[in-house]
């Protein structure tokens, strides 16, 4: 596991495309100390490795697949009405450099 430092946390926030105040990083750092300690304890729980990681709470395997039928698409006004920056019926961004 990566060692948690303030820089690691700042980098993580940056990768999530936001920043926080300095005090918040400190709070976060403290929260991490507790969390990683508890997760360390969980790692010591006997027989834990016998369990596969669980996403679904119970067996909910299905054989359902959606039939490939197109439905009426949204009117374009609805597609765009919540977007803050629109031009020529498209959403506009500063030039995306490849």
């Amino acid at each position, binding site marked *: *596991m990566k060692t948690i430092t303030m820089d690691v946390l700042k980098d993580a926030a940056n990768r999530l495309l*936001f920043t926080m105040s300095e005090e918040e990083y400190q709070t976060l750092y403290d929260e991490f100390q507790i969390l990683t300690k508890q*997760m360390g304890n969980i790692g010591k729980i006997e027989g834990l490795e016998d369990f596969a990681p669980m996403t679904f709470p119970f067996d909910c395997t299905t054989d359902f697949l959606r039939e490939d039928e197109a439905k009426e698409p949204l009117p374009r006004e609805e597609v765009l009405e919540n977007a803050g920056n629109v031009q020529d019926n498209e959403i506009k961004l500063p030039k995306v450099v490849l």
Partner: protein
Amino acid sequence: MNYLDLSIDALHEALVKKEVTPLELTLEALKRAKEDNNNAIERLDEENAIAFAKTLTEPEVDNPLWGIPYFAKDNFSTKGVETTASSNILNGYVPIYDATVVKKLKDAKMVMIGKTTLDELAMGGTGTTGHLGKTYNPYDEKHLHMVGGSSCGSAASVAAGLVPFALGSDTGDSVRKPASYAGLVGMKPTWGRISRYGLFPFAPSLDHVAYFTRDVSLSAYALNALSGRDENDSTSSTRPVEDYAADLHKDVKGMRVAVLKDIVDSITNKVLLKKFNKSLEELKKKGVEIHEVEFGKELLESLYATYIVISCAEATSNDANLDGIKFGPYEGGNTYQEVMFNARTKGFSELIKRRFVIGSYCLMRENQEELFLRAQRNRAKIVAKINEILDNADFIYAPAAPGVAGLFDGASDKLSDEYLIADNHLCLGNFAGLPSITLPLGFEDGLPLGVNFMGKAFEERKLFNIAKTFEDISGLADLSALNKKEGNL
């Protein structure tokens, strides 16, 4: 006393006999909502509500939901009605579609009168982090006590008597804990029983549509309307919908209830313990077989961290769509990254950001095994333990919380046993996806206490059966701050 304060059966009868109309109920609910001072409501949808209520002129005898006004938590997509999940990043967002449950309730002729506040993006349990700040507990006129969260506005609106029903969502205990603090019936059915299409996700593997009522009967009737397969939610169950009210009055003799000893043992509140023990005696008198089981302290103490890791990891991904480009405030920038960065930095509160960093860190390649996957393995172990207990019992029973609602400025010791165990165990129902219902037990100094029953997957009918029995024992049906009762326990 107004018609709004009646039990659902009495209210329905009055509607059928045309003693009161949906419009009158709606207007009364709107009036109460406007006068309410609990900080529960994000916005009213007055015009639409009145217009719809006016169309309800011919009572539907077999539909107890007909004409009943309700609130939806502001994390349900409502077409044409601004929906923000109480986060600035969604300010001004007006959904273009209705959540499946909103549509279903409309089909059942319930009248949505507005949207209730919540902890920002449904993350949090205090009812203090949304747009409106603190949401108050209607049982505390001094406004010192929380009502709990994240479905704080829905809990407060039902407890304050504004409406008989409110939609909420429950990822860890976000309906069932506030229900305990607000003297309400809080129901979360099996994962997949109710479509989540249109519910703003927090952590989909744990998220449930859940709701508040003041009596068990309405809780059962509502599930009849809300349940069912939805082609827009492929995780929704294809099992046929039953009549969940069919067994409300059935004899519970011979039913087996497992009491989680470790949870009860961690509780220090004497009033709660006394009432809880009395409830056990009363259940026994009804022929219910009670036995105590040990869950394992180690496993119970691991609930909180397991929950935080899984829910934050899923949340950071679910909320990656909030970038100010397609919806929500556009904050500008010189590059697309700056556009996203500005929107997200301004739009999320610091608490939310901390949770996202935690979740993201847990998913990082070099951390995933020791954090995210470990939490998922532990979830599997916890669920195995729950199912082992339910092999020998119909229900798991415990106090819903270690006591009454906490104070806003009360320091809680987040690492005490009482906190780690008794304050967090309701997430067992989310880990295992099992139906779980919170019911009022009684009061301590005028504030409600609650209990919780958890049943087997898709056995909601049976769960309502024991819940109704319990409600008869407690004598606390139709409770609200306008309709206070002492109860029998």
